[in-house]
C-alpha cells in the first residue's frame, strides 16, 4: 500500500495536519502566529546547512528552529520589541538560507521543494519521521494539556498552582520546532503557519471548550490535507498551496455560517 506515492502523500498530509491542528490552537490562543512564521522561515537556513554538511534535514531544521527561538528570547530580553525581533529572525533566516544554498559547491540545488513542499515525493523514511514527530507532539501536548492551558490563561495563575509557565512555554516552543520540521516537506516553509493557524481559527467558530476546538481543528486540518491533495490531482496544481486553499475555504464557510447562526 505504501508503494503508492498517493497513499504516502495522503498519510504524510494527515500526520502533519494532526500535529499542526492541535498545536495550532495554542499558537492562536497565545498569539504566536508570527513566532511560528519566523521559526518556519528560519528553517530554510536549517535546510541549507543540512544540505551543505550532508546532515539529516529533519535534524537540521529542528536545531535551527530552536536556535532561532532562543535567539528571539535573548533579543527581546535586550529591549527589542517582539515584532522587530521576529522580523529580523524570519527574514534573516530565510535570506541566509537562500544565500547559503547558492554557496554550496557542486551543482545548483533548488530549495523549491522546501519552500513550497513536495508531498508527492515523500519517501517511506519521510513518512516514518512525519508520523513519529506527530505522535511525539500529540503525546507531549496531551501530557501537558492542563498545565499548558493554565499557563496560557495566566502565568500568575500557573505560578500560584505550582506550575512553571516558562517551562510550559519551552515545551510549546520545542513542539513548534518539531511541527515545522515535520511539515516542511508537506506544505513547505512558507506555508507552515497557514496549517497551524487556519484550522484552529476555523474551529473557533464552533467550539465551546478548548478540547472541542482542538478536536475540530485536527479534523479540519485532516480534511484540508486530503481535500488539497484531491484538488491538486484534479487541477494539476501544487499540493502544498492546494491544501492551504482548502483550509481557507473551510475558514470562509465557517465564518459565514457562524454569521448566519448569530
Amino acid at each position, binding site marked *: 500500500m505504501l508503494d503508492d506515492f498517493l497513499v504516502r502523500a495522503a498519510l504524510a498530509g494527515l500526520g502533519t495536519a494532526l500535529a499542526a491542528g492541535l498545536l495550532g490552537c495554542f499558537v492562536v490562543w497565545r498569539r504566536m502566529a508570527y513566532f511560528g512564521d519566523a521559526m518556519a522561515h528560519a528553517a530554510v537556513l536549517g535546510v541549507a546547512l543540512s544540505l551543505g554538511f550532508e546532515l539529516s534535514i529533519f535534524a537540521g531544521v529542528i536545531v535551527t528552529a530552536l536556535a532561532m527561538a532562543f535567539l528571539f528570547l535573548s533579543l527581546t530580553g535586550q529591549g527589542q520589541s517582539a515584532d522587530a525581533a521576529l522580523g529580523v529572525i524570519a527574514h534573516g533566516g530565510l535570506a541566509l538560507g537562500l544565500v547559503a544554498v547558492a554557496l554550496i559547491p557542486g551543482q545548483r540545488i533548488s530549495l523549491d521543494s522546501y519552500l513550497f513542499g513536495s508531498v508527492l515525493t515523500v519517501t517511506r523514511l519521510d513518512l516514518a519521521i512525519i508520523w513519529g514527530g506527530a505522535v511525539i507532539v500529540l503525546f507531549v501536548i496531551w501530557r501537558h494539556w492542563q498545565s499548558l492551558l493554565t499557563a496560557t490563561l495566566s502565568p500568575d495563575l500557573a505560578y500560584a498552582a505550582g506550575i512553571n509557565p516558562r517551562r510550559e512555554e519551552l515545551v510549546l516552543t520545542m513542539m513548534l520546532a518539531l511541527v515545522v520540521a515535520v511539515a516542511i516537506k508537506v506544505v513547505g516553509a512558507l506555508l507552515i503557519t497557514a496549517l497551524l493557524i487556519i484550522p484552529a481559527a476555523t474551529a473557533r467558530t464552533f467550539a465551546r*471548550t478548548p478540547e472541542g476546538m482542538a478536536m475540530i481543528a485536527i479534523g479540519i486540518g485532516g480534511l484540508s490535507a486530503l481535500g488539497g491533495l484531491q484538488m491538486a490531482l484534479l487541477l494539476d496544481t501544487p499540493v502544498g498551496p492546494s491544501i492551504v486553499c482548502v483550509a481557507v475555504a473551510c475558514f470562509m464557510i465557517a465564518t459565514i455560517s457562524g454569521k448566519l447562526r448569530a
Partner: protein
Amino acid sequence: MTLLSAHNIDVSFGGRHVLQRVSLDLNAGEIVTIVGPNGSGKSTLLRVLIGAQTPGAGQVARTDGLRIGYVPQKLAIDPTLPMTVRRFLDLPVKVSHADAVQALETAGLPDVGHQQMASLSGGQFQRVLLARALLGKPQVLMLDEATQGLDQPGSASFYRQIEAVRRSLGCAILMVSHELHVVMSASDRVICLNGHVCCEGTPEVVSAAPAYRELFGTGTGGALALYRHEHDHYHSHDHDHSHDHKHEAAE
C-alpha cells in the same frame, strides 16, 4: 502557625526600587489586608509570594505543600480561547461536578457552569475566579484588588462573601486593596505599604498611624466611620486621643 513568611524582600525593575526590605508573616486563619497607593508594590509583593516574581534579595518561606488559591486583579481571556465556566473550574485540576457547583455556590453564584466566561458580568467573573481558587481547598487565599471594576455595593457584597468563605473554610486570607473602608473592617491585620512597610497592625492602629495618614490623608477617617462606632471616629480625629487609642489597640 505561620503558613507563609517573607523576609526582607527587595524587588527593583530597571533600577527603580519597587519593594525594599519588606517582611510579612501570614498565620493560619487570619485576614491580612495590604493597603497602599498606586505603584506602591502591592501586586508585586503578591507575585513574589506566589513565586511569579523572583526577588532581588530576601527569602520567602512556605510550609511544605502549601495550597494557595490566587484570585488575580483581572484575567483577560483571549477571545480565540473558548472557555465555559465549568471547564475553567477544572483548571489546573479536574474537579467533580458536585464540587464545582458547591464552589460556585460558596462564591455566591448560581450554577452558571454552561456559560462562556466571556459572557459573564464583571462581578460574576470575579466570583468565578474566587470559586476556582476555592476548589483547590486553599490554606491561603490571595486576592489582588479583586473588586476592581465593581461598583461599591458590588465590592461590599464581594467582601462579605470573602468573610463567609473564611468562616466556612478557615483559610488565611491575604488581600490587596485600595478600598480601605470596605476592607479594613473585615481585617485582623492591615499592612500599609509604600515600597516599604510604613506601618502595620490592627485596622484601628493603622488608621490612626501618622504614616498611614500621610499616605491617605485624614479623609479616610471619615470613610472608616461608616463601619465603625461613632466615638472611634471622633477619637481618631483628636490627636492626643488617637495616641491613646493606638496604645489600646496595640495591646
